[in-house]
């Protein structure tokens, strides 16, 4: 330390990684960094034309990993995410479209999804309700309908033989605009309106095992539990819609009970 002044924490500079090589050529719309996860950087940019927004997921080389192994892992994850996304899209699961990829260079370019992740939308909604002094559980059919859409989306994904591997409320987005409720009631300012779009298939795999599916649901249940005070009854709505979404879903719901039991035991053992 050369000076006596203590820098304010909130002004501490954030490390900006250099743009991935694919983005070092010019574009009409400059790429912007959206999130910097442990494994991947996510940029908003454009594909082919300035009018077509895209998300670029870049997995930079890991200096602490053996280069050959690192390259192999990166390639595998890019290809596996792209394959699963393409399969889902073909079979009617709401996911971003695949635009382009370069597994050797470590990037995947996909459709940009407008809107926000469900976690953030739920928090906004809770806050709004608090500000308006509305009690929990009162007049929340919009929330119930959102839960049904979540259940159907997850059900559809499982039905086509894909398990997500990291199913949280941060890995599903709510895209505004196209969804109007059965009575066309997509009111302005309704933060829970919109279509569910599942994202982040970096840990996904192709499986039709009840166990894998049940673990997906369990992970999602835990994620809901940590964001919503009335999570338990709400998650029943998710499971209700899921149960009706494909043949075999009820077997998965049975299996979920076992998975919960094991989870509880594990947490008791600490």
């Amino acid at each position, binding site marked *: 330390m050369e000076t006596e002044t203590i820098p304010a924490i909130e002004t501490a500079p954030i490390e900006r990684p250099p743009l991935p090589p*694919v*983005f070092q*050529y*010019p*574009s*009409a*719309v400059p790429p912007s960094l959206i999130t910097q996860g442990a494994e991947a950087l996510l940029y908003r*940019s*454009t*594909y*082919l*034309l*300035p009018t*077509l927004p895209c998300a670029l997921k870049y997995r930079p080389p890991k200096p602490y990993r053996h280069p050959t192994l690192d390259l192999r892992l990166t390639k595998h994850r890019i*290809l596996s995410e*792209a*394959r699963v*996304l*393409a399969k889902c*899209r*073909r*079979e*009617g*699961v*709401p996911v971003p*479209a*695949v*635009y*382009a*990829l*370069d*597994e050797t*260079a470590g990037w995947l370019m996909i*459709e940009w999804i407008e809107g926000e992740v469900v976690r953030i939308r739920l928090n906004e909604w809770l806050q709004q309700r608090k500000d308006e002094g509305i009690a929990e559980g009162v007049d929340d059919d919009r929330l119930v309908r959102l839960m049904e*859409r979540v259940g*159907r*989306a997850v*059900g*559809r994904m499982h039905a086509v033989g894909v398990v997500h591997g990291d199913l949280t409320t941060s890995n599903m987005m709510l895209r505004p605009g*196209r*969804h*109007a*409720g*059965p009575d066309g009631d997509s009111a302005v300012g309704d933060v829970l309106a919109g*279509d*569910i779009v599942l994202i982040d298939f970096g840990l996904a795999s192709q499986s039709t095992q009840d166990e894998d599916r049940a673990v997906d649901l369990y992970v999602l249940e835990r994620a809901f539990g940590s964001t919503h005070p009335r999570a338990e009854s709400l998650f029943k709505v998710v499971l209700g819609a899921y149960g009706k*979404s494909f043949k075999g879903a009820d077997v998965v719901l049975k299996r979920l009970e076992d998975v919960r039991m094991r989870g509880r035991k594990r947490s008791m053992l600490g």
Partner: protein
Amino acid sequence: MALESIALEHLPASHTVHTALFRNVKNASFLHQQLLAGNKDFEYALIDASVIMSRLHALAAAYRAVNDSLESRLRSRNVHSEIVFSLSPNNNIAESFRRFGITPQTTNLLAIKVSTPSSPATATEIQSHLSKEVDGEQVEFSDEVLQTMTDLARVKKIYKLNSTGGGNNGGKKGVNGTSGLGASGLEDERKELEILVLGSMALRGATN
């Protein structure tokens, strides 16, 4: 109608993509022959436009070919043949030429040329060469015009998109409660098909 020069996003400014679309082409056989003979004056991707859905479909192939060329990993002879190959959902180069390239029967023709630092042709030069050599009516390279040329059944067959539910808008009530068939149903279906085609191209050789 003149050719359109496009600076694709995330490519060097030195690599401009020039596009020219023709209908009622009468001398496809001659043009095809120039490619087979390796005539250096015909360094174009000459594509049968009946298997092209949209601008994005063609531009995605051009982007991939230029990118692969910059990364020195062309699989075919040059960046122009690579554009044709980049339309393919699989790794069979010869088959991709047969499916997407000009044939003696072609009447709707899309010509794409990439100007590069080593081959810096100008738009004017390319236009005048094409005007001289292509016996056909040049039309706007737009989605509207392309749609009048597309053989959708053939596109679906090539990309194996027949047996599917058609993605989000396949007519059945989707998981988000939007029913696929509305006033914009057909347009939505087309958009969805385009998206699936782009996905197949991106995953060329990576599917199994």
